[in-house]
Protein backbone atom coordinates (compact mmCIF):
# COMPACT_ATOMS: atom_id res chain seq x y z
CA UNK A 1 0.00 0.00 0.00
CA UNK A 2 1.22 3.47 -0.88
CA UNK A 3 2.42 5.44 2.13
CA UNK A 4 0.11 8.25 3.19
CA UNK A 5 1.41 11.58 1.87
CA UNK A 6 -0.27 14.36 3.82
CA UNK A 7 -1.48 17.51 2.12
CA UNK A 8 -0.67 20.50 4.28
CA UNK A 9 -1.63 24.11 3.67
CA UNK A 10 0.71 26.70 5.17
CA UNK A 11 -0.37 30.32 5.50
CA UNK A 12 2.97 32.13 5.62
CA UNK A 13 3.45 35.77 6.51
CA UNK A 14 5.30 37.79 3.91
CA UNK A 15 7.84 39.30 6.28
CA UNK A 16 9.19 36.32 8.23
CA UNK A 17 7.88 32.93 7.20
CA UNK A 18 8.12 33.55 3.49
CA UNK A 19 11.60 35.01 3.82
CA UNK A 20 12.61 31.93 5.81
CA UNK A 21 11.07 29.71 3.11
CA UNK A 22 13.15 31.55 0.53
CA UNK A 23 16.32 31.05 2.55
CA UNK A 24 15.45 27.37 3.00
CA UNK A 25 15.12 27.07 -0.77
CA UNK A 26 18.27 29.00 -1.57
CA UNK A 27 20.37 27.01 0.88
CA UNK A 28 19.03 23.68 -0.46
CA UNK A 29 17.54 22.60 2.87
CA UNK A 30 15.48 19.45 2.57
CA UNK A 31 11.90 19.30 3.78
CA UNK A 32 8.96 17.15 2.69
CA UNK A 33 7.11 18.27 -0.45
CA UNK A 34 3.79 17.98 1.37
CA UNK A 35 3.22 21.65 2.02
CA UNK A 36 1.45 24.17 -0.21
CA UNK A 37 2.43 27.68 0.81
CA UNK A 38 -0.06 30.52 0.70
CA UNK A 39 1.46 33.96 1.10
CA UNK A 40 -0.37 36.41 3.34
CA UNK A 41 0.75 39.92 4.14
CA UNK A 42 0.41 39.16 7.85
CA UNK A 43 -0.89 36.08 9.67
CA UNK A 44 -3.29 38.44 11.47
CA UNK A 45 -5.26 38.51 8.22
CA UNK A 46 -5.90 34.76 8.29
CA UNK A 47 -9.47 34.27 9.44
CA UNK A 48 -10.89 31.30 11.35
CA UNK A 49 -13.00 30.58 8.27
CA UNK A 50 -9.89 30.19 6.08
CA UNK A 51 -8.60 27.50 8.43
CA UNK A 52 -11.91 25.66 8.56
CA UNK A 53 -12.35 25.90 4.79
CA UNK A 54 -8.91 24.38 4.25
CA UNK A 55 -9.84 21.36 6.37
CA UNK A 56 -13.32 21.19 4.83
CA UNK A 57 -11.71 21.16 1.38
CA UNK A 58 -9.62 18.15 2.31
CA UNK A 59 -6.33 19.45 3.70
CA UNK A 60 -4.82 17.00 6.19
CA UNK A 61 -3.18 19.77 8.17
CA UNK A 62 -3.04 23.55 8.24
CA UNK A 63 -0.09 25.62 9.39
CA UNK A 64 -0.08 29.31 10.15
CA UNK A 65 3.46 30.62 10.33
CA UNK A 66 4.16 34.17 11.36
CA UNK A 67 6.88 36.29 12.91
CA UNK A 68 8.20 35.74 16.41
CA UNK A 69 6.15 37.37 19.14
CA UNK A 70 7.14 41.00 19.47
CA UNK A 71 8.60 41.04 15.96
CA UNK A 72 5.43 41.21 13.87
CA UNK A 73 5.70 43.82 11.13
CA UNK A 74 2.16 44.87 12.03
CA UNK A 75 2.87 44.70 15.79
CA UNK A 76 0.19 42.27 16.91
CA UNK A 77 -0.84 40.26 13.85
CA UNK A 78 0.84 37.10 15.11
CA UNK A 79 -0.93 37.32 18.49
CA UNK A 80 -4.23 37.61 16.65
CA UNK A 81 -3.35 34.67 14.43
CA UNK A 82 -2.47 32.48 17.39
CA UNK A 83 -5.85 33.19 19.00
CA UNK A 84 -7.69 32.52 15.76
CA UNK A 85 -5.91 29.19 15.37
CA UNK A 86 -6.98 28.29 18.92
CA UNK A 87 -10.60 29.19 18.12
CA UNK A 88 -10.51 27.19 14.88
CA UNK A 89 -9.07 24.23 16.80
CA UNK A 90 -12.02 24.25 19.20
CA UNK A 91 -14.52 24.57 16.33
CA UNK A 92 -12.92 21.54 14.67
CA UNK A 93 -12.96 19.63 17.93
CA UNK A 94 -16.72 20.24 18.19
CA UNK A 95 -17.11 18.53 14.82
CA UNK A 96 -14.94 15.59 15.92
CA UNK A 97 -11.80 16.44 13.93
CA UNK A 98 -8.45 16.36 15.71
CA UNK A 99 -7.35 19.81 16.90
CA UNK A 100 -3.72 18.96 16.13
CA UNK A 101 -4.43 19.24 12.42
CA UNK A 102 -4.04 22.96 12.95
CA UNK A 103 -0.88 24.55 14.21
CA UNK A 104 0.43 28.02 14.79
CA UNK A 105 4.18 28.46 14.65
CA UNK A 106 6.65 31.26 14.15
CA UNK A 107 10.00 31.69 12.51
CA UNK A 108 12.45 34.56 12.05
CA UNK A 109 13.18 35.78 8.53
CA UNK A 110 16.77 34.50 8.21
CA UNK A 111 16.10 31.07 9.77
CA UNK A 112 15.57 28.79 6.81
CA UNK A 113 16.50 25.75 8.87
CA UNK A 114 13.72 26.53 11.40
CA UNK A 115 11.24 26.74 8.53
CA UNK A 116 12.37 23.37 7.18
CA UNK A 117 12.16 21.76 10.60
CA UNK A 118 8.60 23.12 11.18
CA UNK A 119 7.58 21.59 7.84
CA UNK A 120 9.14 18.23 8.73
CA UNK A 121 7.63 18.16 12.24
CA UNK A 122 4.17 19.06 11.00
CA UNK A 123 4.37 16.44 8.25
CA UNK A 124 5.33 13.78 10.80
CA UNK A 125 2.55 14.87 13.17
CA UNK A 126 -0.08 14.81 10.43
CA UNK A 127 1.20 11.44 9.18
CA UNK A 128 0.62 10.10 12.69
CA UNK A 129 -2.94 11.48 12.66
CA UNK A 130 -3.69 9.87 9.30
CA UNK A 131 -5.71 11.33 6.43
CA UNK A 132 -8.36 13.99 6.95
CA UNK A 133 -11.48 12.02 7.96
CA UNK A 134 -13.55 14.13 5.54
CA UNK A 135 -11.89 12.62 2.48
CA UNK A 136 -11.54 9.00 3.56
Amino acid at each position, binding site marked *: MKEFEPRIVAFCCHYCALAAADIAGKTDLQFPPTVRVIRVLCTGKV*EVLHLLKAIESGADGVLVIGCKFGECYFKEGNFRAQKKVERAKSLLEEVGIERDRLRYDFVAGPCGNDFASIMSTMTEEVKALGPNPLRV
Partner: protein
Amino acid sequence: MIVAERKPFSEILSMVEDYSKILVIGCGSCVTICMAGGEEEVKLLASQLRMAFRKNKRGVEVEEAMALRQCDDEYMNDPVLLDKVRAADIVISMACGVGVQHATTFFNRIILDKPIKVVPALNTTFMGANLDVGIWEERCVGCGDCVLEKTGGICPVTRCAKSLLNGPCGGSSNGKCEINKETDCAWHLIVERLKALGELDRIKPVEPYKDWRPSHNGGPRRIVREDMRI
Protein backbone atom coordinates in the same frame (compact mmCIF):
# COMPACT_ATOMS: atom_id res chain seq x y z
CA MET B 1 -27.82 46.30 21.24
CA ILE B 2 -29.00 42.77 21.82
CA VAL B 3 -26.09 40.54 22.76
CA ALA B 4 -26.16 36.82 22.12
CA GLU B 5 -23.77 33.90 22.02
CA ARG B 6 -23.78 30.76 19.96
CA LYS B 7 -25.15 27.56 21.37
CA PRO B 8 -22.74 24.61 21.61
CA PHE B 9 -22.36 22.88 18.26
CA SER B 10 -23.65 19.56 19.63
CA GLU B 11 -26.94 21.23 20.61
CA ILE B 12 -27.36 22.80 17.17
CA LEU B 13 -26.48 19.52 15.47
CA SER B 14 -29.04 17.61 17.52
CA MET B 15 -31.77 20.00 16.28
CA VAL B 16 -31.04 19.43 12.60
CA GLU B 17 -29.51 15.96 12.27
CA ASP B 18 -32.69 14.36 10.92
CA TYR B 19 -32.96 16.74 7.97
CA SER B 20 -31.20 16.70 4.64
CA LYS B 21 -31.52 20.30 3.41
CA ILE B 22 -30.50 22.89 5.95
CA LEU B 23 -30.51 26.65 5.55
CA VAL B 24 -28.50 28.82 7.95
CA ILE B 25 -29.67 32.44 8.03
CA GLY B 26 -27.63 35.14 9.71
CA CYS B 27 -28.84 38.53 10.90
CA GLY B 28 -27.05 41.71 9.88
CA SER B 29 -27.90 43.80 12.94
CA CYS B 30 -27.11 43.37 16.64
CA VAL B 31 -25.79 39.81 16.46
CA THR B 32 -23.42 40.76 13.65
CA ILE B 33 -21.95 43.47 15.85
CA CYS B 34 -21.60 41.13 18.84
CA MET B 35 -20.01 38.57 16.50
CA ALA B 36 -22.50 35.82 17.24
CA GLY B 37 -24.74 35.53 14.19
CA GLY B 38 -23.38 37.61 11.30
CA GLU B 39 -22.15 36.56 7.88
CA GLU B 40 -18.86 35.20 9.21
CA GLU B 41 -20.58 33.12 11.88
CA VAL B 42 -23.06 31.77 9.33
CA LYS B 43 -20.17 30.58 7.18
CA LEU B 44 -18.42 29.03 10.18
CA LEU B 45 -21.51 27.18 11.37
CA ALA B 46 -22.34 26.01 7.84
CA SER B 47 -18.77 24.77 7.40
CA GLN B 48 -18.92 22.93 10.74
CA LEU B 49 -22.24 21.33 9.80
CA ARG B 50 -20.94 20.22 6.38
CA MET B 51 -17.86 18.71 8.01
CA ALA B 52 -19.89 16.94 10.71
CA PHE B 53 -22.28 15.41 8.17
CA ARG B 54 -19.52 14.44 5.76
CA LYS B 55 -17.62 12.81 8.63
CA ASN B 56 -20.72 10.76 9.42
CA LYS B 57 -21.09 9.89 5.71
CA ARG B 58 -24.37 11.72 5.35
CA GLY B 59 -25.18 13.67 2.23
CA VAL B 60 -26.71 16.83 3.63
CA GLU B 61 -26.96 20.14 1.80
CA VAL B 62 -26.17 23.16 3.91
CA GLU B 63 -27.06 26.55 2.39
CA GLU B 64 -26.18 29.99 3.72
CA ALA B 65 -28.16 33.24 3.64
CA MET B 66 -28.28 36.63 5.31
CA ALA B 67 -31.11 38.98 6.25
CA LEU B 68 -30.21 42.50 7.23
CA ARG B 69 -32.70 42.36 10.09
CA GLN B 70 -34.63 39.22 10.91
CA CYS B 71 -37.02 41.13 13.19
CA ASP B 72 -38.46 43.19 10.34
CA ASP B 73 -40.74 42.12 7.45
CA GLU B 74 -39.18 44.70 5.20
CA TYR B 75 -35.77 43.03 5.30
CA MET B 76 -37.09 39.47 5.23
CA ASN B 77 -39.23 39.91 2.16
CA ASP B 78 -36.41 39.08 -0.21
CA PRO B 79 -37.27 36.72 -3.12
CA VAL B 80 -33.80 35.12 -3.11
CA LEU B 81 -34.02 34.42 0.63
CA LEU B 82 -37.57 33.07 0.32
CA ASP B 83 -36.55 30.71 -2.50
CA LYS B 84 -33.79 29.33 -0.30
CA VAL B 85 -36.27 28.89 2.57
CA ARG B 86 -38.72 27.06 0.27
CA ALA B 87 -35.97 24.67 -0.82
CA ALA B 88 -34.89 23.89 2.76
CA ASP B 89 -36.22 21.23 5.13
CA ILE B 90 -35.22 23.20 8.19
CA VAL B 91 -34.00 26.72 8.85
CA ILE B 92 -31.39 27.60 11.46
CA SER B 93 -31.73 31.23 12.47
CA MET B 94 -28.60 32.89 13.81
CA ALA B 95 -30.61 35.90 15.04
CA CYS B 96 -31.66 36.72 18.59
CA GLY B 97 -34.87 35.25 20.00
CA VAL B 98 -36.83 38.07 18.39
CA GLY B 99 -35.44 37.22 14.96
CA VAL B 100 -36.11 33.49 15.34
CA GLN B 101 -39.75 34.11 16.29
CA HIS B 102 -40.27 36.68 13.60
CA ALA B 103 -38.68 34.42 10.98
CA THR B 104 -41.04 31.59 12.02
CA THR B 105 -44.11 33.83 11.77
CA PHE B 106 -43.02 35.57 8.59
CA PHE B 107 -41.97 32.49 6.61
CA ASN B 108 -45.13 30.61 7.56
CA ARG B 109 -47.24 33.61 6.57
CA ILE B 110 -45.60 33.98 3.15
CA ILE B 111 -44.90 30.34 2.27
CA LEU B 112 -48.16 28.46 2.39
CA ASP B 113 -47.37 25.18 0.62
CA LYS B 114 -45.44 23.69 3.53
CA PRO B 115 -44.77 24.46 7.19
CA ILE B 116 -41.35 26.02 7.80
CA LYS B 117 -39.47 24.97 10.92
CA VAL B 118 -37.04 27.55 12.30
CA VAL B 119 -34.63 26.64 15.09
CA PRO B 120 -32.29 28.94 17.05
CA ALA B 121 -28.51 28.76 16.91
CA LEU B 122 -27.95 31.44 19.53
CA ASN B 123 -28.77 32.03 23.17
CA THR B 124 -30.00 35.60 23.44
CA THR B 125 -28.26 36.89 26.51
CA PHE B 126 -28.86 40.56 27.27
CA MET B 127 -29.14 44.15 26.10
CA GLY B 128 -25.70 45.55 26.51
CA ALA B 129 -22.85 47.77 25.46
CA ASN B 130 -19.60 46.95 23.72
CA LEU B 131 -16.97 47.85 26.34
CA ASP B 132 -13.94 46.91 24.29
CA VAL B 133 -13.14 44.61 21.37
CA GLY B 134 -14.71 41.28 22.33
CA ILE B 135 -16.26 42.44 25.62
CA TRP B 136 -19.96 43.14 26.14
CA GLU B 137 -21.80 43.91 29.35
CA GLU B 138 -25.45 44.19 30.25
CA ARG B 139 -26.76 47.72 30.60
CA CYS B 140 -30.55 47.54 30.39
CA VAL B 141 -33.21 45.04 31.45
CA GLY B 142 -36.01 46.88 29.65
CA CYS B 143 -37.95 47.48 32.87
CA GLY B 144 -40.22 49.95 31.07
CA ASP B 145 -39.79 52.78 33.60
CA CYS B 146 -36.38 54.39 33.22
CA VAL B 147 -34.75 55.81 36.37
CA LEU B 148 -31.46 56.92 34.81
CA GLU B 149 -32.27 60.60 35.27
CA LYS B 150 -32.19 60.13 39.05
CA THR B 151 -29.10 57.95 39.16
CA GLY B 152 -26.55 59.86 37.11
CA GLY B 153 -26.98 57.72 34.00
CA ILE B 154 -26.10 54.44 35.73
CA CYS B 155 -28.87 51.86 35.97
CA PRO B 156 -29.26 50.31 39.42
CA VAL B 157 -31.98 47.96 38.15
CA THR B 158 -29.56 46.31 35.73
CA ARG B 159 -26.16 46.84 37.24
CA CYS B 160 -26.89 46.29 40.93
CA ALA B 161 -27.06 42.54 41.58
CA LYS B 162 -30.05 43.16 43.86
CA SER B 163 -31.62 45.86 41.65
CA LEU B 164 -31.72 48.13 44.69
CA LEU B 165 -33.23 51.58 44.24
CA ASN B 166 -31.86 52.80 47.59
CA GLY B 167 -28.33 51.48 47.66
CA PRO B 168 -25.66 50.54 48.23
CA CYS B 169 -26.10 47.44 50.36
CA GLY B 170 -23.58 46.15 52.89
CA GLY B 171 -21.91 44.02 50.24
CA SER B 172 -20.24 46.97 48.53
CA SER B 173 -16.52 46.94 49.18
CA ASN B 174 -13.91 49.26 47.64
CA GLY B 175 -16.30 50.02 44.81
CA LYS B 176 -16.86 46.36 43.95
CA CYS B 177 -19.90 44.15 44.38
CA GLU B 178 -19.88 41.16 46.72
CA ILE B 179 -20.98 38.81 43.93
CA ASN B 180 -17.49 39.04 42.45
CA LYS B 181 -14.51 41.35 42.50
CA GLU B 182 -14.75 42.07 38.75
CA THR B 183 -18.19 43.63 39.06
CA ASP B 184 -18.45 47.29 39.93
CA CYS B 185 -20.91 48.22 42.66
CA ALA B 186 -23.56 50.13 40.70
CA TRP B 187 -24.39 52.28 43.71
CA HIS B 188 -20.75 53.17 44.24
CA LEU B 189 -20.65 54.34 40.61
CA ILE B 190 -23.90 56.27 41.07
CA VAL B 191 -22.65 58.07 44.21
CA GLU B 192 -19.34 58.94 42.53
CA ARG B 193 -21.09 60.22 39.39
CA LEU B 194 -23.61 62.31 41.36
CA LYS B 195 -20.75 63.74 43.44
CA ALA B 196 -18.96 64.77 40.24
CA LEU B 197 -22.17 66.33 38.95
CA GLY B 198 -22.71 68.13 42.28
CA GLU B 199 -26.09 66.45 42.59
CA LEU B 200 -25.52 64.08 45.51
CA ASP B 201 -28.65 65.42 47.19
CA ARG B 202 -30.67 63.60 44.56
CA ILE B 203 -30.27 60.27 46.33
CA LYS B 204 -31.45 61.58 49.69
CA PRO B 205 -35.20 61.04 49.10
CA VAL B 206 -36.11 57.40 49.67
CA GLU B 207 -37.29 55.81 46.42
CA PRO B 208 -40.58 53.97 46.83
CA TYR B 209 -41.05 50.39 45.67
CA LYS B 210 -40.49 50.06 41.97
CA ASP B 211 -43.57 49.66 39.87
CA TRP B 212 -42.84 46.55 37.86
CA ARG B 213 -46.07 46.72 35.86
CA PRO B 214 -44.43 48.29 32.79
CA SER B 215 -41.89 45.45 32.87
CA HIS B 216 -42.55 41.89 31.71
CA ASN B 217 -46.06 41.66 33.00
CA GLY B 218 -49.34 40.62 31.43
CA GLY B 219 -47.96 39.10 28.26
CA PRO B 220 -45.87 40.70 25.55
CA ARG B 221 -45.60 44.47 25.69
CA ARG B 222 -46.78 46.33 22.64
CA ILE B 223 -46.37 49.83 21.34
CA VAL B 224 -48.63 51.24 18.67
CA ARG B 225 -47.81 54.60 17.09
CA GLU B 226 -51.06 55.72 15.52
CA ASP B 227 -49.32 58.58 13.70
CA MET B 228 -47.25 56.03 11.78
CA ARG B 229 -50.23 53.88 10.78
CA ILE B 230 -52.25 54.43 7.63
